[in-house]
């Protein structure tokens, strides 16, 4: 019974979660309606590349939904119908051309309350403030506000330049002409599940909380999964007030089907009886640490994991519990559902620490047999392009690090309810709430391979993420990992108040010249990121 802040939040959640959402008010533009309680979880619309190119137009807009929540939706128009958050499917080497129109209207909750007043003033600047001088260039940074947005391709190992995957200076204002992202998936990239979401500093939480996210899948042939029915499940989390210390009314959603927080009709996943299935799960929540289990009847099922964070495991491995931090992905093969049986998908909860956010256990979905083939046909699949050369990050384990660095997460709060300042700091530097016009905290160069040890000195868990690359998890709490895996997001548990700080040691691969530039690393609990738990790294060209 040590989790006092969490206790309070849960108590208040308990008091609030039964409340009816506030009445929806008419507001344009309208997001597509989202499925009601107890709906079948349906895969998002797939958009496939054609002849090596995927050309897609998305509009980000917002509106209060019938559930009372403020929705932020990526809208794709499919045969005259608005469709939300399609899955982008490409092969290695394909070109992605994404035209994003920002149509955000009248957002509320202008300032995340966890940022102090003075910090707000400083934190809302992007880049070098050239925006006011050249307001027509979204690549020049400037003031970021509640109507601003941009886009991050989470996990893709692509260039940190404007129009590709750059979030420091790229800022698209509502009403700007469509902004084109144009990037090529590396031909030697790993097939697996990635995702896209907005990343405007200070407002990421609000937009992602509203549902602005979608899956991006790099295709690849795998004899273990070819021909299996594929489920793409995007788990989101929506709060009535994304930036409130109090949890308030909130729920997880599975492809937008709400999961009742305490009890109520569950989302339904239709599974084929007697056949394995291939599930790709994305944790697109703003702060939920998921610990997934699948039960048939009362029996916990082994799940054969084939990929983490988009990267195939060298050896598929069976687990009964899958820990997925915010922003993490896991791809696995589900055992056949026995005839006459139903099942449940649940999260066991996660102890985020004495001052962490509530992260309770929940039953998330009911597994029911698919009838007459409904939802049971395999997703359309194509032969993936043959990868060229060695896979990204090949041989990283055997590389000799060119540098060792130590970083740590920490927090400063003025009271039990915040506002809290969140830091990620290089040891030897002073803790600092991130501003977009900060100089890089770390400078390195193309060709470097570095080992970073990252501690958590806070009383709550954090989730480390770095843009543009995957890292190899070399050690946890100083203990070497026997079979390191590549990830782009990793949980670092809370400090318990005594003893060594929890830590991970990550091998960073800066050998790819394509990632030269300046990008960010941060905590992927998004209100932590918005409140400053982020820093820049500058990767200079080798010469």
């Amino acid at each position, binding site marked *: 019974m040590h989790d*006092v*802040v969490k206790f309070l939040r*849960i108590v208040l959640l308990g008091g609030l979660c039964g409340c009816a959402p506030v009445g929806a008010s008419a507001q344009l533009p309208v997001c597509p309606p989202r499925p009601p309680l107890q709906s079948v979880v349906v895969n998002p619309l797939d958009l496939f590349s054609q002849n090596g190119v995927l050309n897609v137009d998305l509009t980000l807009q917002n509106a209060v939904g019938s559930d009372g929540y403020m929705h932020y939706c990526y809208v794709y128009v499919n045969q005259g119908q608005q469709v939300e958050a399609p899955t982008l499917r490409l092969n290695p080497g394909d070109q992605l051309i994404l035209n994003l129109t920002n149509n955000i209207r009248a957002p509320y909750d202008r300032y995340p309350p966890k940022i102090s*007043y003075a910090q707000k003033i400083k934190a809302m600047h992007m880049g070098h403030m050239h925006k006011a001088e050249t307001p027509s260039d979204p690549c020049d940074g400037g003031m970021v506000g509640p109507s601003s947005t941009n886009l991050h391709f989470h996990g893709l190992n692509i260039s940190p330049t404007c129009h590709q995957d750059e979030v420091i200076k790229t800022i698209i204002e509502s009403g700007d002409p469509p902004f084109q992202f144009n990037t090529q998936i590396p031909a030697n990239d790993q097939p697996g599940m990635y995702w896209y979401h907005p990343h405007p500093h200070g407002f990421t939480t609000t937009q992602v909380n509203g549902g602005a996210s979608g899956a991006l899948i790099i295709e690849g042939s795998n004899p273990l999964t070819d021909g299996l029915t594929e489920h793409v499940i995007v788990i989101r989390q929506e709060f009535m007030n994304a930036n409130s210390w109090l949890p308030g009314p909130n729920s997880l959603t599975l492809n937008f089907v709400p999961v009742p927080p305490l009890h109520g009709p569950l989302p339904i996943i239709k599974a084929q009886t007697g056949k394995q299935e291939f599930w790709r799960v994305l944790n697109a929540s703003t702060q939920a640490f998921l610990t997934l289990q699948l039960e048939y009847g009362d029996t916990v099922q082994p799940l054969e994991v084939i990929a983490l964070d988009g990267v195939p495991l060298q050896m598929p491995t069976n687990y009964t519990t899958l820990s997925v931090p915010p922003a993490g992905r896991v791809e696995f093969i589900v055992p056949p559902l026995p005839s006459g049986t139903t099942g449940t998908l649940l999260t066991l909860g996660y102890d985020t*620490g*004495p001052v962490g956010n509530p992260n309770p256990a929940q039953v998330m979905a009911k597994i029911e047999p698919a009838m007459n083939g409904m939802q049971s046909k395999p997703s359309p699949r194509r032969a993936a392009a043959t990868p060229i050369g060695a896979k990204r990050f090949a041989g990283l384990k055997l590389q000799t690090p060119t540098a060792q660095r130590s970083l740590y997460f920490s927090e*400063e709060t003025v009271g039990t309810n915040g506002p809290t300042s969140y830091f990620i700091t290089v040891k*030897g530097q002073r*803790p600092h709430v991130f501003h977009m016009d900060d100089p890089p905290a770390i400078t390195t160069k193309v060709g470097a391979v570095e080992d970073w040890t990252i501690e958590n000195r806070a009383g709550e868990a954090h989730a480390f993420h770095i843009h543009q690359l995957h890292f190899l998890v070399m050690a946890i709490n100083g203990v070497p990992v026997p079979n390191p895996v590549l990830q782009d997001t990793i949980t670092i548990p809370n400090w318990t108040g005594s003893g060594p700080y929890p830590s991970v040691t990550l091998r960073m691969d800066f050998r790819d010249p394509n990632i030269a530039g300046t990008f960010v690393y941060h905590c992927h609990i998004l209100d932590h990121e918005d409140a400053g738990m982020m820093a820049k790294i500058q990767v200079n060209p080798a010469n």
Partner: protein
Amino acid sequence: MKMYLRLLLTVAFIVAVAAAGVAGSPPQKGSAADPAPATYVITNDDASALLGQNSISFFQAGGTPSAPSLTYQTTLFIGGTGIGGGFFGTSRLNSLPDSGAQCLYVSDAGSGAVVAVNLQTQQAAGTFFGSENDAGTTNGIGLGLNANYLYASFTDSNTIGTFTILPGCQLSFVNDVSVGGLNGGTIYAMALSGNILVVSYADGSIESFNIGAGTPVPNGDAQNSTGYVIDYNNLPDGIDISQNGHYAIFGDAAVSPVVEVSDISSGKLKPTTVYRLGAGPTAVAPNAVVSGVNSSNVRLSPDESLLFISNNQSGTVTAGFFNPATGSISPGCTSATLSGFYSPWAYVASMVTENTSGNGGVLYVAEFGVPSSIGILTITSTGGTCRLAESINSPAVDPITSGGVLSIWAYPPRPF
């Protein structure tokens, strides 16, 4: 499931001990068998509406000089509701700095009220409200008083309410004034001495008011603190004022122990001087516990030789040597991490001493958690050295808490 089990067990625990508390007997002070006046430590339990009404709990000081203790006596339910948390530096209960003080004032942040408690009868003497606008439902209501007026800082409405103190601990609301930091920040904390009321804001600024006529009148000295100007991570929070009224001392919310001192002998704030009392996280060996994180609460010892600092987020307490003639502070000592940090409690907050003279003898510190508790430390100081050692009888658990104790008070209180 573990989370819900914890919740259920916690609620059951609270309900059980609350029932026991109602049946308890009030403390017996100054009985014939105990010629020395007893010292009581009193908590604002800050119970939120979801778990009942707010209360204050009484603990009696005891034990031996080397192993001091606190013994729970009773709980008085005061009718309103708390919020179970808020700003560290906000003082949620207060009395006149007088061993003969009759009245203790307690804030009910959830219901927006100030409750008067008669210390002789240990009974509530009345519940008083400010204007309809006054609210502190998110981060609390702070209290400060002199012989004539009580001031209540409402942290949500950003107002300071003025009440006239009447016989029988009664209050009469006069008015409220809107306040705000230079950069728009809300009010964190306040302290008063003579005609000056000193305030800290959430935006790094500080300000003083003249209260000679009762209602606070700005002195026109609002300023960003020096610590904030140096590093915007430093936010002046809790305040104490030296006995002679010459120095206002601010504990900063900061990443290491930082305090600031302003000369107020002119009746206005002068620019603050910054004192860093811990190495902080930038000079710490790997995996070592830093000397302190966050220093929002400060409290002078009765003889003003020591300044106690709660390191709110690292579960330790620091003492610095204070020079009341110059207002300067020099590094002293830091306690070990107090028992129960992060399990079951999460933050340390306000402090009081047992004795009303000397260095205070024993330091009590509020430990915010479920359950909350009071840390007990012996104070040793000779020459330029000091030691803060936790008693084997620490902590004293507050059985009546549905959210957390941030503010404690001692009776008899320190004489300034």
